[in-house]
């Protein structure tokens, strides 16, 4: 093609037409419609109340952790590069700023179940540079494992130590014959944590730990005054971890 004025005008015209069409094309390729499962359960603000008078032994917590970790394909890795969604810790570690030297011995020696707090003001979401971790409209703090770049800023940001990083290949810590095919395994180099079982809520099931806790964990909609969680919170004295940091955790503990 000769480089003359006519050719230039032609090209410019085509380019202009492309520019005019682009926004339409982009818009049509955007959010695809989602067909919701009618059985799914929804809430405005999911929350959890843990009754530590019922659930407080290492064995009980290990059982719940096992259930959670097996359905979410959480790898088992020895040492301090481990990955965990649910675990137990004594009072001094779970509530370090709310300790007193004359605490009832029994309360002090209980094991408390720890998991992501699904905060109202999650610092992990605030610091994530790619929106790989985000807060859903129902209050659950979720992760996109495919967008995470593995910078671990969220781990520095979380005041509760609720996040784990896949330092190595997670499948090396999994029994491949016992994988749950309904939940993805992760790749190395991304962060993960408890997701309040969003995949189960979507099909109408309660979170696995709640189901396995035999009533020691209550789960429900915090914004609904008639929900189970609100009922328990009205009747029992509860505390949350590190109230001073202003994150407003969605996990409450009956002491």
């Amino acid at each position, binding site marked *: 093609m000769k480089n003359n004025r006519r050719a230039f005008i032609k090209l410019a015209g085509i380019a202009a037409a492309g520019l005019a069409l682009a926004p339409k094309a982009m818009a049509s390729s955007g959010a695809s419609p989602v067909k919701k499962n009618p059985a799914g359960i929804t809430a405005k603000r999911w929350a959890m109340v843990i009754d530590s008078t019922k659930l407080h032994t290492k064995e009980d917590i290990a059982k719940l952790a096992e259930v959670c970790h097996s359905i979410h394909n959480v790898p088992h890795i020895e040492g301090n590069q481990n990955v965990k969604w649910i675990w137990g810790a004594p009072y001094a*570690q779970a509530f370090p700023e709310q300790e007193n030297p004359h605490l009832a011995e029994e309360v002090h020696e209980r094991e408390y179940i720890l998991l992501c707090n699904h905060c109202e003001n999650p610092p992990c979401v605030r*610091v994530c*540079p790619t929106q790989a971790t985000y807060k859903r409209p129902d209050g659950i703090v979720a992760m996109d494992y495919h967008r995470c*770049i593995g*910078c*671990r800023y969220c781990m520095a940001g979380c005041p*509760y130590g609720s996040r784990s990083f896949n330092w190595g290949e997670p499948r090396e810590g999994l029994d491949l014959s016992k994988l749950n095919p309904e939940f993805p395994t992760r790749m190395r180099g991304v962060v993960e944590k408890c997701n309040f079982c969003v995949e189960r809520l979507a099909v109408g099931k309660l979170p696995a730990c709640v189901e396995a806790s035999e009533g020691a964990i209550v789960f429900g909609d915090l914004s609904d005054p008639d929900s189970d969680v609100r009922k328990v919170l009205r009747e029992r004295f509860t505390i949350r971890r590190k109230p001073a940091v202003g994150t407003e955790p969605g996990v409450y503990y009956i002491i």
Partner: protein
Amino acid sequence: MLEIALKGSKRYYGWIAFLLVLIGIGSMAYVNQLMVGLKTTGMSRDVSWGFYISQFTYLVGLAASGVMIVLPHYFHNYKKNKHMVIFGEFMAIAACVMCMLFIAVDVGQPTRMLNVMLYPTPNSILFWDMTVLCGYLGLNLMVGWICLEADRQRLPHPKWLKPFIYTSIIWAFSIHTVTAFLYQGLPGRHYWLTAILAARFLASAFCSGPAILLLVLKITEKFTTFQMPKDAVKTLVKIIMYAMCVNMFFFLLEVFTSFYSNIPGHMHPIIYLFSGAHGHHELVPYMWTFIGFAFLSIALLVTPKLRENHKLLPWTLCILVIATWLDKGLGLVIGGFNPTPFDTITPYMPTGKELLVSMMVYAIGALIVTVLFKIATGVKAEMGHSQALPCGCSTEDFCDCAEKAEAAAEAAATVEA
């Protein structure tokens, strides 16, 4: 001007080859890290940032430091710095590149790094840190290169560049402020959660950065005809002295606030670093070395006789660099993660592979500095700017050593006659 970097002595090429070997060795460790993941490092669930991020933090200070030469020159019309400015800018380029590389080797999924730009997230300080670092790199590349090119053609620096130069001076402060914001906005990390962190970062940057720059320029003087003007060095050392004093003053403010308030969360990291906690004393010797060296360097800097002793100065600067590195390149990150959110201690030490990868990044930085300084000193030599005189002064000193020597020789001759 790049051709200047291609023409060099055997020693120059030998040094470049040496750096390439280091880069090669380090990159093998990096390839291994890419293949198996970051488990090759000493980092853990509790101490999730380590040597890489602390080197990044320290080097942002180096990047920002060139402004201590540039600012007096442009804002105070301090002409003695005229031929030093380019080295500040070129050092900033190398430091910015090293900072970016330290982030790149630290992320778990480096192939996805562009997600930071594809999904820009203004509420994340990391997004802003990337923005200010890229901006600062671009500004210094442009300003440095164009000014040097103009010098070489014996032309005045283009007028349109002025706004960019002024912007880059303000920008230098922003890069270290934003880097401090990475840390100081995190709830529950008491060692970092302090309003003075950004100010302390700047103070430590403005002493450690120019100190490193001076040391590198001292080495440059050994291998080229370039000679720093005496007064420029004097001024820069004074700046280093004041910045180090301010840095340690800020540190003491930190100690006062923590211990007078008696708030456990504020005291624990400092207690862990300086006397150990829960049976862990790994960092205690390093942190006391930091304190010892910091005050030693201040003592050597505030005493005029010692400060102006050119034999002693490189040692003073080395002591200062070690002190600030132990503080910001080691204690800062580990002290932020320990005690952990569970009030426990998880010790951290970098692994050999981690150090090899870091060596690779530092060697790349050294390579960039070598090439850029070679170009800058080459142009200075062509133009006869800031060159070494036989008497040991610089041509910018306008000394009368030669005349004095001549007069002395004449006097000696007349006495003999």
